[in-house]
């Protein structure tokens, strides 16, 4: 079947099997390999993207369900000249990533959170990231990065 959508501002289409997941269409059909697959039970969040502005795990929907949708992936977050977004820059500044595999999902989830809640509390950030697993950072610097991206001071305990 044929599917068409807008990905990172570009109109795209492809011939796919009906069972093709959105994440597989992005990775294999469009070669946008920044969106990662870390599990097969929709738990880890490494494949998080935005679909019409909403945060979605790209392994939870078929590509066909995204027909006509506007998709943003990690490749579409930085400015066209390569300047990192506020969230991306904060992740680098606060060492919010190590191996980098969960990072695209974390950035997409954090970006979504700050759009709806510009000054989230620590507890709200931790709650929002419940569907995104990181095995490297212990979350410490991810939380710091997101608080910094929202313009907040770090809690004293986190200052080290």
């Amino acid at each position, binding site marked *: 079947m044929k599917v068409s959508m807008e990905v990172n501002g570009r109109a795209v289409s492809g011939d796919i099997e009906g069972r093709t997941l959105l994440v597989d269409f992005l990775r294999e059909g469009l070669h946008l*390999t920044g969106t990662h697959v870390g599990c097969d*039970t929709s738990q880890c969040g490494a494949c998080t993207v935005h679909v019409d502005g909403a945060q979605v795990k790209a392994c939870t929907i078929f590509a066909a369900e995204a027909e006509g949708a506007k998709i943003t992936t990690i490749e579409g977050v930085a400015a066209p000249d390569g300047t990192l977004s506020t969230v991306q820059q904060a992740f680098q500044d606060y060492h919010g990533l190590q191996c*980098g*595999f969960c990072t695209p999902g974390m950035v997409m989830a954090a970006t979504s959170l700050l759009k709806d809640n510009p000054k989230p509390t620590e507890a709200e950030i931790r709650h929002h990231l*419940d569907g995104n697993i990181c095995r*490297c950072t*212990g979350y410490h610097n991810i939380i710091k990065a997101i608080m910094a991206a929202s313009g907040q001071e770090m809690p004293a*305990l986190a200052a*080290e």
Partner: protein
Amino acid sequence: MPKDSGIGASSKRREDVRFLTGTGNYTDDINIYGQLHVHFLRADVAHAVLNGVDTSAAEGMPGVQRIFTGADFEAVGSIPCGWLITDRHGDPMQEPRHPVLAHGKIRHVGEPICAVVADTLAQARDAAEAIVLDYDALPAVIDMKDAIGADAPKVHDDLTGNLCYDWGFVEENRQAVDDAIKGAAHVTTLELVNNRLIANPMEPRVAVGEYNRADDFHTLHTTSQNPHVIRLLMGAFVLGIPEHKLRVVAPDVGGGFGTKIFHYQEEAFVTFAAKALNRPVKWTSTRSEAFMSDAHGRDHVTKIELALDAENNFVAVRTETYANMGAYLSTFASCTPTWLHGTLMAGNYKTPHIYVNVKAVFTNTVPVDAYRGAGRPEATFQLERVIDMAAHELGVDPIALRRQNFITEFPYATPVAVEYDTGDYHATMDKLIDIADFAGFDARRAESEAKGKLRGLGVNCYIEACGIAPSNLVGQLGARAGLYDAATVRVNATGSISVMVGAHSHGQGHETSFPQVISEMIGIPEDQIDIVHGDTSKIPFGMGTYGSRSLAVCGSAMVRAAEKVINKAKKIAAHLMEASEGDIELKDGRFSVAGTDKSVAWGDVTLAAYVPHNYPLTDIEPGLEETAFYDPANFTYPSGAYSCEVELDPETGHVKIERFCAADDFGNIINPMIVSGQVHGGIAQGIGQAMMEGCAYDSDGQLLSASYMDYAMPRAGDVPFYTVDHSCQTPCTHNPLGVKGCGEAGAIGSPPSLVNAVLDAINSGPGKKVAHINMPLTPSRVWAAMQ
């Protein structure tokens, strides 16, 4: 004033930009023109005689290129174990054949039986469902003590039983230890489980095999922490491919934690099949496959006895441990519960008599091997738990008891065969007491109690041996490889530098921290220096990254190579300035002649090396590139003191971690930001082990915890902010940077204080007193223990 570059600076990680923009190159991002996909049909029973495999229906299905079975690998080598253990009686361990695909017998759930290679992954999966297996199920052996019983079914029919080895360390100390325990004023005995874990790096394993028939050349792209180790093991022992015809590439790797050290069947399969089919073959693990095919970790059952004299001095430690090997010996499975565990049983304490017994057991479970810390968390947990228990039994302060027994003079030779070069255990304990605000604990406990909660404070120390390892020593102990590392410093004509290193970065930030060292040595900006790693065709023969060794071993090789480069560059500079070589100084990227105003820039010298018009060609060669191999003289011994503060709801058994503090001594530090990050991540994995992670099998050998819905990994809401400090620094005395490993410390040092804290909370209340709870301390376990 913090530095902004070089050694000691928290330089931002350059690798982050590609990871943050989705432009990393992980193995699953590699797709080669013409590639086929393989799906492994895996065992869904734990133990069975495999009578036959009928692939006839599957072979005709759409897209199927070929279906491989165990029979295709009869002439192929066994997946090797890298370490021979000699048992208490001087006999070698039992070492079963480990086939690429099961043949004749199935030995664990998840073992690959058939490999379906098809044009697409979906076609391969569809075809696998049409394969018919003819097998007769056998009773499975899961419990270790059952497995070595007289009537237990044998995992391997050709072995004498399920005991891999019965190891005694130090066997000559056994009688002295027994005597010391008999004569002790007090003996504390603790039986405990070090729970089985699954490492779960977020990137599942992937392998892509390629073959070029014209050159008879193989390439394997794989998610590995050590591409040269894979080339050695797979080339020499499994497939018989000479090194010059085999390239192993480990590009960006999404976390390892030990489980990506080992050589796995899937790597050998795709390399073999790529030649057999003359097409690239790709395998990408699903997470479900990862749970039942990645080597698991820990899984020890231990009895430890700590004997004290009348003044509470430790006089002896005796342990008996059952260590699960799973169904086969993974690459380093045999050394993890022995040399990486027994040698740490002195901990931070001057206990004169120590004896460690380890019985390694085969069971019908996934192979068990090194996971972050590998043997050292198991040693630390039992020792630090039994010390806390002894303190409670004796009615003394757990910190005072530790302090009384601290080793204070260095170097210190332990009774378990290692020599600590340096350390200051009182300093890290003092620092911990400060950063964790012990003084305010009573007030916080009162606040908790006013809410109907219980509050506990747990403490522990740790020492670990990392920077693995002196080759001559490990060779005597049974290692089948050297454990040096290597680096090549290639200076380009314009002065920029590429450093090819044997270490592999899969989250550790080498691409940032290693250039900081070179920048400091030469005085040129960090961005003039690049690190190349992860490709056997580009780097010298290094042993990779595990055992917190990258900086201590490979970093030392890099320093030695850079020293050679600088020495040669000084000769060139001396020639250019018509001065004596002994008068040449290098500072801030300029060579000068001592006591004069003559100088030349780094770039002038490097250009001269490659455009040698005015050059001492009769004395030295053109070019500026040097390689060094570095074999460490000893392990490094990071140490520290950790504390955890918890609030416990006695109604539900739910534990909230309120504070976690770590005071570590890592010696000198290159990048404090990265070091803190390593400790954070290690602590989170320790929290996972202590509070929620547990790999569970039922008695039939079915893996019950085989997805993120069943295996509880720490999520953002399960952990607190951590307070970490590494200002206590006793530099390593035997490597050029004075550095110790920091990658595993957090996972080694954290579980005991978590358990100690929960027990402290429980025992501060009015209810039943509890001596021990086995990890993970889930609410149901805690609540049940309190009833």
